[in-house]
Structure formats: structure tokens, C-alpha cells
């Protein structure tokens, strides 16, 4: 859903200069990826012979879940699929337009924070932070030259890694939170990042905390197990995983960046007839809320499949806590609403806490 690449034409020359291509693979957004192949023959996700949306078998996450390509060999350097740039090109100009094609994403963004807050507060080992603890009724007012967070200074602040940050809707908002120490936001497309960077320039509070990097997760320098402090309290990949070719390999990479006690939070769409009807047929074809060609239903991942990845082996169960899910439904005119149980049907969040300290 965080559909995003931009038009090559929209990049100003100086922006492409400031984003040298990293050696890591195609310059395509992780998240946006299906589109151009809409007409291509598509293999079903879990089993070649069966593309019905509901299956009872657990996911086989260590193998390729689906592919739009004849070549099903997992790429070694990137989960990014090169093929959607032409679709997302057209969307760039409206990424930050509140009434543009990304409106649904803007409306969803507050729920991401609510979900992260719910995840973090569910666990005693993740330091649950409140914005401030002072009553606001202090007789000692903040210093006249600026605001103070007398109490949050004592609370450990959070490091975020946002994978597939697109235009930065989530990354900016995470950086603005007073409880945030830093946000590293990555996306492999320099074009998308140009939009993100130029928008971040419009808010002076962001630059001290927010860093954009043109990179895939696979090409981020791997952190040594002992470099715990460099790891992240919150690793997010919102509306990303349904766009990657090898979700299991992708998650294996992502896991290395989650601090013990930290959370990996994701959002995606379940692969059901309902989600086909709502996100593909209604949202794209009929209502036009979402640009046509944004979603490839065949790449949607069901909640039990994603959950299965974190629970499939004893090793994984030692590494990850119990996944938490939250289903959300978009009501036109009202925005996103949490609907318990809807994670089995359509858009959902899934969060999982990293428990063990050794790397998987």
C-alpha cells in the first residue's frame, strides 16, 4: 500500500547526485513492486496447483512463496523486485498530498503508532514510555528559551529502523515523537528518497533525528551480535512484505537488526476473496482510492502464514515472542478502524518481540 516510486523525471539532478547508487542491487523500491507484471502469469503463493485464498497448511516460509518470474532462484543481494517503477512513477507528485493517491496511507499512519504502543506496552521487557510524566501543572515552568522534557530525558529513547520507507510518512512521524532517539529510514529507490528528503526539509525538527539511506535491508551493513546498542528498538516494514519476492529470506535479514527486547512490526494484507474484492476490485478498479495496479493479490500474505514464520521451528520460537496481530478496516469517509478478527480477512498489523540475544 505504501506504493511509491517516483518518476525519474521528477528527480532533480542535484537530488540524484546526493544519492549515489549503492552497490546493492536494483534501484527499486522494496515495497512497490508488483504492478508492472500484472499481466504476467502468476504462480500461486503456497502451492503451484492451488491458488485458493484460504489454505489450512502452514506457510512454508523458507522456500520461495511466490514469484512473478520464471527465475525462482532467490537473489543473493536483494529482495527487491525490479518491475514496478513505471507504476509508482506516476504517484510521486502526490505522495504528500493529503487528498492525493496516498491518502489512505496517511490515514493509516496513526494506527501504526497505536499498534507499536500496544506491542511495547504488552511486554515488560520493552521499556514502555509515556510522553511525559509531569502533570503539566508544574510551578516550575519550562525554560523560556525552549520546551523541556524533564521526565522523558530519564526514559530510554527508542531507535527506529523503517524498511521501505517510501516518501517517509511513517519515518517522519516516528522521528517527531518525543520518545524517539533516532530513525534510520531506508528505501532502495533514490527517486523515492528524493521525495522523502525534500519533504523532510520542510520540518526543522526532523533533521537531528531522521536519516534516510538509499539501501535494501540486505545491503545494510550487518551488525555484529555484540553490537546490541547499534540495533533497533523498533524495526518496521509497513506495506512492504507483500511486495518482496522472498519474504522468509527478507525476514531472516530483518531479524538481525532487531535489538533483544525490541519489536519487529509489519503490516500487510491477507490473501482472501474479501481482500481481493476490497483492495483490488473496489479500491483500485471501482472507487479509485488506491492507484490501479498497486496491489498484486497473489503476493498477499495471510496472517497465519506470517505468524507461522515466527513459530515454525524451535529455534524461531526461542528467538521471537508470541506474535500479536491487529486487523484494520478502511471505512470510506471515516478512515481506518480496528476490527478484531479482521486480520484474517484484509489489512492487518503483526508485531513480534525479539527475545534471544544470539543471532538467528
Amino acid at each position, binding site marked *: 500500500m505504501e506504493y511509491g516510486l517516483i518518476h525519474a523525471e521528477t528527480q532533480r539532478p542535484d537530488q540524484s547526485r546526493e544519492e549515489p547508487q549503492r552497490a546493492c542491487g536494483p534501484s527499486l523500491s522494496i515495497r512497490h513492486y508488483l504492478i508492472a507484471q500484472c499481466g504476467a502469469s502468476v504462480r500461486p503463493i503456497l502451492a503451484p496447483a492451488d491458488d485458493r485464498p484460504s489454505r489450512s497448511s502452514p506457510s512454508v516460509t523458507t522456500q520461495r512463496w511466490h514469484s512473478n518470474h520464471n527465475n525462482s532462484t532467490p537473489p543473493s543481494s536483494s529482495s527487491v523486485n525490479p518491475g514496478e517503477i513505471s507504476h509508482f512513477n506516476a504517484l510521486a507528485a502526490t505522495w504528500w498530498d493529503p487528498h492525493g493517491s496516498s491518502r489512505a496511507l496517511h490515514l493509516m499512519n496513526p494506527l501504526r503508532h497505536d499498534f507499536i504502543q500496544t506491542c511495547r506496552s504488552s511486554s515488560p521487557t520493552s521499556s514502555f514510555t509515556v*510522553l511525559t510524566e509531569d502533570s503539566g501543572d508544574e510551578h516550575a515552568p519550562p525554560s523560556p528559551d525552549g520546551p523541556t522534557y524533564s521526565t522523558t530525558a530519564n526514559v530510554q529513547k527508542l531507535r527506529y529502523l523503517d524498511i521501505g520507507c517510501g516518501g517517509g510518512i511513517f519515518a517522519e512521524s516516528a522521528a517527531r515523537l518525543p520518545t524517539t532517539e533516532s530513525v534510520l529510514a531506508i528505501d532502495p529507490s533514490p527517486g523515492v528518497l528524493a521525495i522523502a528528503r525534500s519533504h523532510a526539509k520542510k520540518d526543522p525538527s526532523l533533521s537531528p533525528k531522521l536519516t534516510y539511506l538509499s539501501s535494501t535491508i540486505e545491503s545494510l551493513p550487518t551488525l555484529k551480535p555484540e553490537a546490541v546498542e547499534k540495533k533497533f528498538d523498533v524495526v518496521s516494514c509497513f506495506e512492504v512484505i507483500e511486495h518482496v519476492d522472498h519474504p522468509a529470506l527478507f525476514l531472516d535479514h530483518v531479524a538481525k537488526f532487531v535489538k533483544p527486547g525490541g519489536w519487529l512490526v509489519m503490516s500487510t494484507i491477507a490473501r482472501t476473496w474479501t481482500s481481493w474484492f476490497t483492495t483490488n476490485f473496489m479500491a483500485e478498479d471501482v472507487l479509485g482510492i488506491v492507484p490501479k495496479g498497486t496491489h498484486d493479490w497473489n503476493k498477499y500474505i495471510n496472517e497465519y502464514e506470517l505468524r507461522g514464520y515466527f513459530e515454525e521451528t524451535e529455534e524461531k520460537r526461542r528467538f521471537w515472542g508470541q506474535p500479536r496481530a491487529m486487523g484494520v478496516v478502511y471505512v470510506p469517509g471515516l478512515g481506518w478502524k480496528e476490527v478484531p478478527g479482521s486480520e484474517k480477512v484484509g489489512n492487518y498489523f503483526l508485531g513480534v518481540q525479539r527475545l534471544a540475544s544470539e543471532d538467528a
Partner: protein
Amino acid sequence: MEAVARRKAAAYVCLSCTRQFQRQIRRQYHNAAPRPDIYDVVCVGGGPAGLSLLTALRANPVTSHLRVALVEAQGLSKVKSWKLPPNKYSNRCSSLTPTSAFYLDQIGAWEHLDQTRVQPYHEMQVWDGVTDARIEFDWAPGSALVEGTTIAYMNENLNLTSGLLKRLEQLGGVSVFEGAKVENITFGEETENLDLRQWPVVHISGGKQLTARLLVGADGANSPVRAFAGIDAKGWDYNRHGVVATLEMEGEGWGEEHMKIAYQRFLPTGPVAMLPMPGKYSTLVWSTTPENASLLKSLSPKDFVAMVNAAFRLSPVDLAFMHTQGANQDDEYSWRLQHTSFNPRAIPQTVVGVQDGTVASFPLKMRHADTYIGERVALVGDAAHTIHPLAGQGLNQGQGDVQSLAKTIEHAVTHGQDIGSIMSLESYVSERYTANHVLLGVVDKLHKLYSAESGPLVPLRSLGLNAVNALGPLKSFFMKQAAGSGTKLF
């Protein structure tokens, strides 16, 4: 040390951004324009709406870290130390609904009002001056003394602004620019690292410039902030003036001090209202033609008092005649009163005096801004809407705006949204616009309905008023709506 300082600075959103930015500017643009003084909220206008908003933001721990500034053209120290003897009341009073009072209490301001000067009332008497059809908004007998039966509180506007200023002083943390005129509002500039081209910059007298993440227009009906945002306000003038005065009554009212009553009589020229203040005092709001208003202001105290008594008692025809006289309304009133029958208990007690220097008037109009928000702009109170005073809702609408906007800002802060972005501010408009619009429309129609002296509307409106009066539940519904405690309709 530098690293420590930087680290510490990073804890404070705005401070850090300012400092970081300043550092960069210093490094790269030695000779560039003065570095911007960036605030999260710049509120133009230190009236009830603006002060309530700043108080709400400062009192809430979630928003208290925001860097906020107040720009007010008047000096504020006089307002803060405002004090009048118990036998004097300001002529600018407002009716505060229990909902507004509750909110003021929530943000810690209510206790800073001089409570001896706040008068709750528990009953309303509203009648048609042409047909005498009447509706009595009284609670069931005996329930008036129970908490929650207060229809509204009468209060001097200065008591409210003074209380809010005291509360703000207690909270601290507001950069106050008083006696400062807004000379211009422009947009910021773009530098290599910062793009402030959508950020409003308020230029105030003395040359200071305040850059605003969110610029709040609480600057009244002729809002410069609204003009800057290019938001149009539509509406019309009523060709009526509101005449106000502080009145001394013969007694504390028919219900004595614990059962105060507000009165309103619809005359063809507009409604005349008498609202109880503490003790033997009342405040007058008389909507009438500009000609009548200037006559009333020219009368001697004795004749003015006679006119006010006549307005609640005599027929519209008698009253119209008395408005043609240049003086001696007192004699005319005494004579005509003998030939008029009325139930004295159903109308206010007799006015015996008017406080010197309190007779004043202001033009009445209806205005509604096309929207309340723009990029990095929000309007509250009279800057967003101006309403006919007949329902006593003007100030309460402003309080409703403030409550909604403060909630909107809080939500944006807790979810990392930019509090100045349209996306963050949308919920404020959707929550307030329709509600205000309906109220503006209803009050406007009421004014027009009761301006008719004859024609098919007159018997119909009386029928309506009498019918509502006969239907207890409907009446109770209206009262709860008036008190702001009823089911939220919009």
C-alpha cells in the same frame, strides 16, 4: 561537552531543531537573513478563545513541551489585574454553558475566575412580544438546586480573560508579545537544509518575526490570520445593534439568589434579554435597529430605565411610539403601564437604575468562514464565526473550537504528525464546522422568524412556542441542548 549538549538538545523537539538549524545557518550563511525564531504554535489574539487554547496546550502534559507564543495588540497586565467593586459590573458579559465551564475547569482556569462575580441561572423565560406565546425553560420543581440543573453561568468577559491569564502565568512557558500589532504575515524562506516556504512568519511591531509551525487565528471577526490564509467569511449584517448595559434591579429576582432566571422577549425589532448577575444586578442585551440604539444611548438614566422596563412589558406598538420621543420616556412609561395587563411574576423584576457609563452598542452580524484550516493555519472563535447573540452561544462556540483544536493537536503530537499539516488539522474542521454551521443557521432563522410583526409566520411561531412549552420531554431536550449537556447532535 558539545556532544552532551547536542544529545540533550535532541530531547527537546523544537529547541533541538532550532539549535541545529541555527548551527547550520551560522556555518553556511554568515551573512544571510536573521535566523528564524521558530514556534510550534503562534496564537494571534489574546481573547477568551486564544487564551483558552494556550492554557489547554500548556496544561496538558502531552502538549506542554510545544513552544508557544501569544501575540496580542492590547496590554495584558491591566486585564490580568482587572478588579471591580461588588456593586459594579462590566457591560460585556457572556453566558457560559456548563460544558464550557467544565472545560475551563479541566484546564485549570475556572478556579482563577472571581467566583463571587459568576452567576449561574436555572430557568429561562422566553416569550413572543407580539402574541405573548411563551415558553418556560424551568427544570422540574425542586430539581433546580440539584447539581446539573444550571442552564448557564453569566460572567463578565474580563473575569474570564483575567482568570485565564492568571492560569497561564501559573503554567508559564508562553512567550507573550503584548501590545504588539501584527504588521504583516509572510512565508518563510528556503535554504539549503531547510524549506520554510509554507511556514507563516508573523511580523509584529518592533520588528520581531515569529515563524509558526501552526498559526492560530484567534484574532476576532476581522481576523488578519484568516485574511492571510485566504479564507473567505460569508454572511450578512443584521442591520441591528446590540445595546448592552449593567442594570440594578429592585430585588434579587423572583426566585431569590438560588433560583436565578434569564428572560428574553422577542420584539419585532429584535430580542431583548435580561440576564442575572450576582445580587440585584442584571445585564441587558437588546438587539434593535441602529436608530433605536442611538436613541437609547442618548437617553438620561431615568428614561433609559423606563425604556428597558417598557421593553419587557408594553406592547410593541407602545414601545415603537416611545422610540419616537426624544426624552421623557419615564412619564410616558408610567402612564402606559397602567393600561397594560401582565403577570409581573412572569417577567423580570423592575429595573431601578443603570450603572454609569455601561450603556453601549455594537453592530450584529452573522459570519462563517469557509473553512477553519489552511496549511499551517487554524481559526478559532470569532475569527471562524460570528453569531447573533440571541442564544448566548458565541463564546461557547469558541470554547468548543478550542477544546476540539487542543484535542486535535494532542492527537497529532502523540502520533508524530506535524501539528500544522492539513492532514493533522482535518479532524478539527470535521468536528466543529457542521455543528457551528447548524447553530449559526438556527439562530439566524430564529432572529428572522421573530422579526416579523404580522403575516402567516406570526401565529405559526406562537403555535410552535406554545406546543413546545406543552411538551415536557421536548422542552427538556432544548434545555439540555442550551446547557450544552444534551446528546451531541452534530
